[in-house]
């Protein structure tokens, strides 16, 4: 009883400050605590108990409890336990102690809660606007329940500009993004450059917010959201789709049929395959090695075809519903998928052998963008970035979901902590993914793929789900609610945490290594940017202004 043990530890230490605890299963723990001890509890868990910080969630709970709610999620990876520490914050004075001092990785999450829900974090090290667009008025918080999903604040100020920090003395500001040849998605890094050395940076992202969470909480229904969740990311959409479904299932205590779990695993691994191949290609493109870029895209292509054959789409498979999946693998597809995997493995093996021996790529990537174990802990880095630094975490093994507890696979780690190690980890993970799919195809039994759910889902339950995306842990938090939709749904894409590690990675490095350092986390800005719509300009035959575009969007929706 790991969850019980951890709870007892907390109770011993904090006694009456622990108000309530839920242990829905042995791998989940929800602890409600007094606001005054939040910093101490988090310090104790993060420091003494050596938990890994996942994310903080803010929710407007006023219609139900009259208070705001903040949750800090932690993971105990070796013990296979996910913990959520919940605090209720009074509605009339929404203030809470910041934990960013004791858990540096909570920096962004708290700023996001401040923007979106309006809870002030006292003692935050850098309380600056993170998510809301430049012209958004202060004091308006879109994730509050009294703010309509399609509302635009009246005093939205197009002219207002974001105030960037002053660069340190002697440094020049070199902008990187939003429109840069190596960035596929918009994000703005304001690099402080001294000569050729990067001395620091300021990040301004969240330029493609689409209001997905707000939309889910106000308009969509349980089974609409998986399709929406999938569109969070253009590469690892299936991850969000599965993670959402699992979070809801875990909240409502639903167990999908085994065949559905196998299918989820297969599709998740197919996604990992094409994502890793894509990344190796892009990384090569960044270091100016277009030949391997083209090769890995060529090798990747059959995976896209087979995905299309199975699901109807190269991407955005539309896989999950609550309690099952929507598409099955026929025996013919199974044979074909095996053939594709064999071909992929045969083609990828020589590529990996060549890359691992290539001195030029090593020279370009060794010792670059270093994030060591301490940095991973501090910034909450996850996925291949953490594994490349020797941090042995992988949600597939640590927090098993779908059928990952029924297949054998290795968690690939490396100890360099640099870009090169990340290349090695990702290149080798491809083979593990192939093996997992093969085992699934062997073990899959015929049976139903979708549960018949007749009852309404229970209300007010909490669900957590961590899914190992190609980029790292994708974490979903769900509070079930009325009207057949969740009350709160929070998505934490892996890039959200990994991006926070970038400033430390690029500090005191050459400008030339900036791109590959950033690229090595496999950044996925749109994953990170989930909320609110803003900042779009395109010029086909006409340059649309922001207002025109917004008008257009609203007219279509109405």
């Amino acid at each position, binding site marked *: 009883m790991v969850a019980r043990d951890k709870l007892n530890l907390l109770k011993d230490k904090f006694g009456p400050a622990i108000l309530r605890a839920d242990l829905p299963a042995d791998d989940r723990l929800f602890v409600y605590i007094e606001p005054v001890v939040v910093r101490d509890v988090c310090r104790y868990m993060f420091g003494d108990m050596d938990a890994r910080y996942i994310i903080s969630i803010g929710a407007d709970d006023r219609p139900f409890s009259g208070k705001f709610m903040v949750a800090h999620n932690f993971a105990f990876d070796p013990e296979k336990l996910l913990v959520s520490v919940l605090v209720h914050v009074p509605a009339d004075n929404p203030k809470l102690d910041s934990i960013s001092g004791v858990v540096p990785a909570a920096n962004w999450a708290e700023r996001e809660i401040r923007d979106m829900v309006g809870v002030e974090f006292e003692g935050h090290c850098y309380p600056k606007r993170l998510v809301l667009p430049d012209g958004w008025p202060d004091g308006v918080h879109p994730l509050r329940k009294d703010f309509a999903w399609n509302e635009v604040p009246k005093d939205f100020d197009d002219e207002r500009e974001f105030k960037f920090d002053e660069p340190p003395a002697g440094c020049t500001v070199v902008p990187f993004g939003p429109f840069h040849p190596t960035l596929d998605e918009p994000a703005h890094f304001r690099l402080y450059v001294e000569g*050729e050395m990067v001395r620091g940076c300021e990040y301004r992202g969240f330029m493609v917010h689409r209001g997905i969470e707000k939309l889910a909480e106000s308009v969509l229904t349980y089974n609409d959201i998986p399709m929406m969740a999938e569109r969070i990311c253009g590469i690892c959409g299936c991850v969000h789709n599965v993670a959402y479904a699992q979070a809801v299932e875990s909240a409502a205590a639903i167990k999908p049929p085994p065949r559905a779990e196998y299918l989820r695993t297969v599709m998740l691994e197919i996604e990992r395959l094409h994502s890793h191949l894509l990344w190796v290609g892009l990384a090569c493109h960044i270091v100016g090695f277009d030949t391997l870029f083209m090769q890995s895209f060529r090798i990747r292509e059959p995976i896209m075809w087979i995905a299309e054959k199975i699901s109807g789409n190269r991407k955005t498979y539309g896989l999950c519903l609550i309690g099952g999946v929507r598409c099955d693998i026929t025996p013919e597809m199974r044979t074909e998928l095996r053939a594709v995997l064999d071909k992929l493995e045969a083609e990828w093996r020589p590529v990996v052998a060549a890359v691992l021996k290539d001195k030029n790529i090593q020279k370009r990537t060794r010792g670059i963008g270093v994030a060591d174990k301490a940095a991973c802990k501090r910034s909450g880095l996850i996925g291949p970035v953490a594994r490349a630094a020797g941090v042995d975490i992988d949600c597939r093994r640590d927090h098993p979901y779908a059928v990952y507890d029924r297949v054998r696979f290795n968690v690939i780690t490396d100890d360099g902590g640099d870009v090169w190690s990340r290349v090695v980890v990702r290149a080798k993970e491809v083979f593990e993914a192939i093996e997992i799919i093969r085992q699934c195809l062997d073990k899959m039994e015929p049976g139903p793929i979708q549960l018949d759910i007749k009852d309404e889902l229970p209300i007010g339950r909490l669900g957590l789900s961590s899914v190992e995306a190609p980029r790292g842990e994708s974490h979903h938090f769900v509070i079930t609610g009325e009207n057949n939709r969740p009350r709160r749904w929070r998505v934490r894409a892996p890039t959200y945490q990994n991006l926070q590690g970038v400033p430390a990675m690029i500090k005191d490095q050459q400008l030339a290594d900036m791109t590959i350092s950033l690229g090595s986390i496999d950044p996925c800005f749109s994953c990170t940017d989930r909320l609110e719509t803003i900042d779009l300009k395109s010029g086909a035959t006409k340059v649309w202004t922001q207002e025109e575009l917004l008008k257009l969007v609203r007219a279509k929706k109405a």
Partner: protein
Amino acid sequence: MDFPEPIRLLAFLLGMMAFVAVNAAYLVWAERKGAGRFQRRPGPTEVGWAGLLQPVADGIKLISKQVIVPPGADPILFRVAPLLVMAPAMMTLAVIPFSETLVGRDINVGLVFVFAFGAINVMAIMMGGWASRNKYAIISAARVVSQDVAYEIPMLLVVITLLMVTGTMNLNEIVQQQAGWFWHWNLFRLDVNPLMPVTFIIFFICMLAETNRAPFDMAEAESELVAGAFTEYAGMGFGVFFMAEYANIVVGCSLATVLFLGGWQSPFGVGSGVIWFLLKMYALVFTVIWVRWTFPRTQFYSLLNLSWKILIPISMVTLVLTCILLKLT
């Protein structure tokens, strides 16, 4: 075939322009087609047969673009830079002997002439980058200059080694000396200097770096510096820089052919002519393209290290060794 000299020169120059233009355009095609083949894809196929009209389409596109000179830019330097990058490339071709008779100006110090004009290239890119008043352009310009000057030194040093053997700076004479079977080429004249292949390799590496070609393409390391020194150049302004890059490749490969591979001399001692020159030159050009698609871009500092800490000492040692060998024989 006796024309008055001025007319001959003019004809030669017009021919040279056509040669440069056609080469620049079709080397781009060859590069894209070659890159495609290296990467197991077809390359351009849409415009004309096998994409052969692609360069024409590109040219029309570039020429029909709006010419933008940013108001913040230095108006004179910004406009002069493309001229200065293109003109020297053509100038140097004028002294390269394509065959025994096909040469623009057969001057005594042809080699120095080539290097002198070749060096202007660096200045022109610096000028363009600096005049643009764009951060990426300026960083790139600074890199280009330090890269090009770094590789200029080993290049000049290895050429000295060669000069000690040839005893002349007249390119025509250098080719004449290499008449006969291919072991008379400077590259294979191991009897006078067993280090000749090393010399050639250093020369080739330096040539790659001087022309800012991958893996030494710091000038336009697009993943970090957008379009490098040419970021602010629109349309044909960029087009001229682009053409000049290929013209410079032709110049570099021609020079390597003349100095090391026997110029227009046939490898079998008979049937020498311009065809041999072109064959050898294009074989080198192909190698340049091949190298680009085989190696990743080097890091800027390891690039400088390669020149200052490896190539320069090696070329100095070859110089001294050649000196001693000549003394002993």
